[in-house]
C-alpha cells in the first residue's frame, strides 16, 4: 500500500513541480540602485553586518518527494536526522568565529567603497547596535547600510559532501525618513564541496575558504553599490 501511495503521489508531485518551474508569484527581489542625486546629500554612513550561526544540513534526507507511507517511521527518522544535524551545527558554531566572519566581510566592503570617495566618512560597526547606539547613529550619520546574511548553511550534495550556501541582502536606509536608498540580494553556492569533518573542526583551511568567499562577496556587493543611476 505504501509503495502504491508513493507511486501515485510522485506524478502529482512532478505536476506541481512543473507549475513551480514555469509559473511564479514573484520574481527575483527588486534591486534599488543608488542615485546620483541622493549621493550629494549623503556625507556619512555607518555600515553594519549581521551574520547568523552557520547551519549544517547533512543527515536530513535530500529527497525530491514528500514523505509517504507510514508517518510514524518518517517522524522518527526525521527526528533522529534533525538531532544529528543539530549536533553538527553546534560543532560548526563552536568551530567558526562569527565575529571573525563579520569583520572579514565588513572591512572588505568598506575598503572597496572607500576608493570611490563618495562620502566624507564611512564607519564600519561590527556589533548589532543597541537603542543608545541607534540614537547616536541617527544624530551622527545620514544613512545606515546593513549587510544581512540570511542564510549561511552547509548542505549535503549528491556526493555526500557539503556545499556552502550564502544568501545575503544589502540595504541602505536613510535615517530621517527611512527611505530605502539601495537594496540588493546576492546568493552564492560554493563550487567546491567539503567533508563534514572539515566543516565541524575549524581549521586554518576553512578560514581561508571563508576569507576568499567573503572577500568575493564584499567585492560583488561593492560593485553593485557603486553603480549609480
Amino acid at each position, binding site marked *: 500500500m505504501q509503495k*502504491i501511495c508513493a*507511486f*501515485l503521489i*510522485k*506524478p502529482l*508531485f*512532478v505536476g506541481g*513541480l*512543473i507549475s*513551480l*518551474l*514555469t*509559473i*511564479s*508569484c*514573484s*520574481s*527575483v527581489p527588486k*534591486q534599488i*540602485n543608488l542615485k546620483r542625486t541622493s549621493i550629494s546629500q549623503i556625507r556619512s554612513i555607518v555600515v553594519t553586518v549581521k551574520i547568523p550561526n552557520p547551519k549544517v*544540513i547533512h543527515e*536530513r*534526507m*535530500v*529527497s*525530491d*518527494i*514528500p514523505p509517504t507511507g507510514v508517518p510514524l517511521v518518517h517522524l522518527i527518522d526525521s527526528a533522529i536526522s534533525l538531532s544529528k544535524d543539530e549536533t553538527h551545527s553546534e560543532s560548526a558554531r563552536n568551530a567558526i568565529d562569527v565575529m571573525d566572519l563579520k569583520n572579514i566581510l565588513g572591512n572588505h566592503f568598506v575598503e572597496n567603497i572607500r576608493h570611490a570617495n563618495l562620502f566624507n566618512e564611512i564607519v564600519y560597526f561590527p556589533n548589532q547596535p543597541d537603542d543608545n547606539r541607534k540614537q547616536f547613529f541617527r544624530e551622527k550619520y545620514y544613512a545606515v547600510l546593513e549587510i544581512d546574511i540570511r*542564510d549561511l548553511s552547509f*548542505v549535503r*550534495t549528491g556526493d555526500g559532501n557539503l556545499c556552502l*550556501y550564502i*544568501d545575503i541582502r544589502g540595504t541602505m536606509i536613510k535615517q530621517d525618513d527611512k527611505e530605502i536608498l539601495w537594496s540588493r540580494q546576492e*546568493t*552564492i*553556492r560554493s*563550487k567546491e564541496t567539503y567533508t563534514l569533518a572539515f566543516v565541524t573542526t575549524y581549521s586554518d583551511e576553512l578560514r581561508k575558504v571563508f576569507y576568499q568567499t567573503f572577500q568575493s562577496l564584499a*567585492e*560583488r556587493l561593492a*560593485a*553593485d553599490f*557603486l*553603480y*549609480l543611476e
Partner: protein
Amino acid sequence: MRQRTLLYLQIPLAVFLSIIIHGCSFTHTLKISEVPSLQINSPLRELPSKTFVINEFTDKRVNTVIFSDTGHSFVSDPNLLRIMRKVLIDELSRQGQTCVNQVSKDIPDYIIEGVVYKYSFGIGGAKFTRGRATAEVGLRLTVSPNNGSERFTKDYEGSFFVKGGFGGPTAIEMLNQAMLNAIRDFLLDKEFIEFLRKS
C-alpha cells in the same frame, strides 16, 4: 459492502492512470524571455576603451536537458548560446568597452571565445520542505590579444538559489540570474583586469 467494492475499483483505476502518466514522456522548453541587465560598476570603466570581437559561443554540455523527473524533461532555449553571447556584448559595452562584429573593418584588440559547459537547475529537498532550488551556469571564456601575446582562459560559474516554500522566482529567472552572476564575475575579475592592463 458497496464502499468496499468501490475501493476495489478505485485502486486498479488509480494504478492504471499512474502507469499511463509514468509511461508518457513530456519535454518542455524553458524559453528565455528577457534577461535583465547587470547593474554594476566594474573596474573596466577605469581602463581605456578596448575593442573586442566576441565569436559565436560553443556548447560543451553533455546534453541540453536542464532538469528531468518522472518522464518530464526540461530542455534549454535553442537560442541559449546566442542570448548568452549578446548578454556578454551588452555588458562589456555598458562597462565602456567596444564590441564589434568580426566582419567590421575595425581591427579588434581582443577576440573572446565562449564555451558553455553548464546550464542546470536542481531541486534538493523539494520546494515543499526547507530544501533549495539552485540554478547554475558555467562559462569558459578565452580572451586572445590580437598582437599574438599569451591568451587568458578562465571558467566562470554563476549560481542563484532560493530556499523552500511556494512563490519566488521561476526556474528561468533563476537561470538568467546565474548567467548574469557568471558574467559579472568575469567583469569584476582582478586577474582579467590585470591581463588587459598588461597586454
